[in-house]
């Protein structure tokens, strides 16, 4: 039970990061972006490339940090990957979403995002191959926290959780304490009114994409670190991430953060009562339950 809760929190941290970016984009640009999860793949794969470059250029970076399988090279690669992913998110907006936004309606945007997701996924498969990749071939053994009940934790997962919590705190402080944060929230609330008050909407949209992409890249790297990297990361994670967003309420960053943990916990705890063959149904059930009971999510507000 406790082990399952712990596992749920660790998975939840990854989902939270992915859902935060998604909820911001969904709220501000008012469409369900099914290509968001592909940004996780872009992040994971670009980190893989930079990691390999750093390791071969500066062997000193290839040593592992303490008990982690993460190296300094991967840490740096992760930061660069966040930048690359943010930039590609902006690029996709320029190339696809902005054009569709000007001509089509919300539904066109949704379809465009589906198409974009397919293109990104297959392009990654074409470049890197469909095989499983790993940041490190070594298996980092779990640390035993307690023998009875048996509690096992991998150092990597704790580090992931720690970093995710720090990022979440930073995000919270930015949103609640800075002018930039107020502007961001204002745009999310009402873009027209925000523009009247002198906020540059275009700049804000770019910022949201960069932020969303960066967080997605981080989630992608963490996912690759605790599992493995395949071109289908996006496809596999799109549903849990959407579930997290919907649970939290579209547009609510805090909701998305909490939603991620709720979905992660629910999926893990569900195994206590459901046979494991049914675990893929859990995100669907959560989405259904939330839409039936609280259509706007935990923190969402009704919108017209």
């Amino acid at each position, binding site marked *: 039970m406790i082990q399952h809760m712990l*596992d749920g929190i660790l*998975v939840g941290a990854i989902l939270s990061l992915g859902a935060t970016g998604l909820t911001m984009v969904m709220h501000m640009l008012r469409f369900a972006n099914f290509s968001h999860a592909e940004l996780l793949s872009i992040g994971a794969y670009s980190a893989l490339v930079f990691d390999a470059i750093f390791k071969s250029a500066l062997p000193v970076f290839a040593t592992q940090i303490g008990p982690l399988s993460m190296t300094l090279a991967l840490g740096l690669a992760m930061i660069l990957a966040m930048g690359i992913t943010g930039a590609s998110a902006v690029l996709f907006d320029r190339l696809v979403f902005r054009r569709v936004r000007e001509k089509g309606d919300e539904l066109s945007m949704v379809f465009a995002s589906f198409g974009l997701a397919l293109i990104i996924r297959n392009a990654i498969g074409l470049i890197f191959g469909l095989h499983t990749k790993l940041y490190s071939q070594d298996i980092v053994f779990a640390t035993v926290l307690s023998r009875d009940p048996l509690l096992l934790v*991998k150092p990597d997962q704790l580090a992931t959780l720690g970093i995710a919590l720090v990022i979440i705190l930073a995000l919270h402080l930015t949103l609640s304490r800075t002018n930039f944060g107020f502007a961001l929230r204002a745009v999310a609330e009402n873009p027209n009114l925000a523009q009247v008050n002198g906020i540059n909407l275009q700049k804000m949209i770019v910022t949201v994409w960069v932020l969303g992409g960066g967080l997605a890249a981080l989630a992608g790297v963490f996912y690759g670190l605790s599992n*493995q990297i395949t071109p289908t990361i996006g496809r596999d*994670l799109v549903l849990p991430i959407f579930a997290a967003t919907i649970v939290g309420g579209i547009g609510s960053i805090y909701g998305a953060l909490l939603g991620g943990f709720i979905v992660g916990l629910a999926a*893990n705890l569900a195994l206590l009562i459901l046979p494991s*063959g049914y*675990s893929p149904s859990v995100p669907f059930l959560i989405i259904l339950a939330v839409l039936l009971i609280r259509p706007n999510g935990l923190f969402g507000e009704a919108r017209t």
Partner: protein
Amino acid sequence: MKKLNNSKLALTLGTSIGLAMVAGSAMAQDCTTKIGAVLPTSVDWGRPIAETAQFAVDQVNAAGGVAGCEIEMVLRDTQVDPKVGVDAAKALVDLDGVQVLLGAVSSGVSMPILTSVSVPSNVMQMSCCSSSTAFTKLAEEGNTDGLFFRTFATTGVQAAVGAKVAADQGFSSVAILYKNDDWGQDLNNLIARDFEALGITVTASVAINDGQPSYRAEVTQALSGSPEALYLGLYPAEGTAAVREWLSLGGTQNMIMANSLKSDDFRENVGLQYLGSALGTDTASPRVASADAFVAAYIDRFDSEPNGPGLANSYDATMIALLAMEAAGKDATGDQIAASVASVTDPNGTPVTADTAGFAAARDVLAGGGTVMYQGATGNVRFDANGDVSAPAVVWKFTEGGTEEVQYLSLTEVDDFIASLN
């Protein structure tokens, strides 16, 4: 068109020469018996299966046919579609009046043909390539009327050999991780039963779905019973993720793997250093003279090695069906032919080879009231009560360069072991 005519001509010529060569020993053929073949000839790997069946028919005709009549194999395409397959089989039975159906390849096509054509029409069906244990279940429930046979080993062989490895290694408790699809569920049910028969405790059977965000919870569940070994009925992608998770959580390195994990990806990503005590299982082609003879004859006939799937199995299916028709006599019905299969695959019978001479020899033995042991392309074929065959197996392990055979289990050893489980 021109080319087709030419090749047709060549074929006719070849056949006539072949016939002329054996004409001395052949009986007069003034009648024709039709048999039906429902095979997916419209897919690239289906065509050679049908050609191999025709090859066997040609050899038998060269020996003078069955019960004094020449055999004509009427071939119809299934398009790997159950509906098309059933229509084709129905037409063969109703219009051509065949008593024997060869096929189909996919279990999903063979099954509806069996239940809606073969059984109601009392026709014997012999499949070269269907592996599903659903047929075994159907036979056990008595719903095949003993009309169904196949020359392709079921998942049961893989499961039994996996259980044998566990027993040989002295493991007393095993956890199972299996892929959550038809194949994985089948394998899990079979091996769980085999473990039980050997007195090995199954501490947990956990289904693994593709593409999950984490396999942590599943692996934790499998770990909870502290098993001595882990059985893996998984594919490489989710297998890698699950096994890495398993090892990092302190799970045992005593692993038994299904043939699906015979993959370089899996070996590299899990790491050879952790796979030292991991043993895999697989079915193998028999290492007997009759199998080599088939390969030689095939190369002689088709100018290529029989490398496609199910070729040896297709050859044996056809040959055994024709031998059974010979044993059952002229104008025998499907159930009579099916009942005669045992007399041509009798382990105590006179050994006969899988070729023209072998068929002629079998005819003499059968005419004298004896039984024969058919030694075919897949070895000495022996059907169990459900019409299933088994296959030789190998136990393998990972090495630097790939995989290496640890142990070869001959057909007899596999059969005896499976028999000891029941």
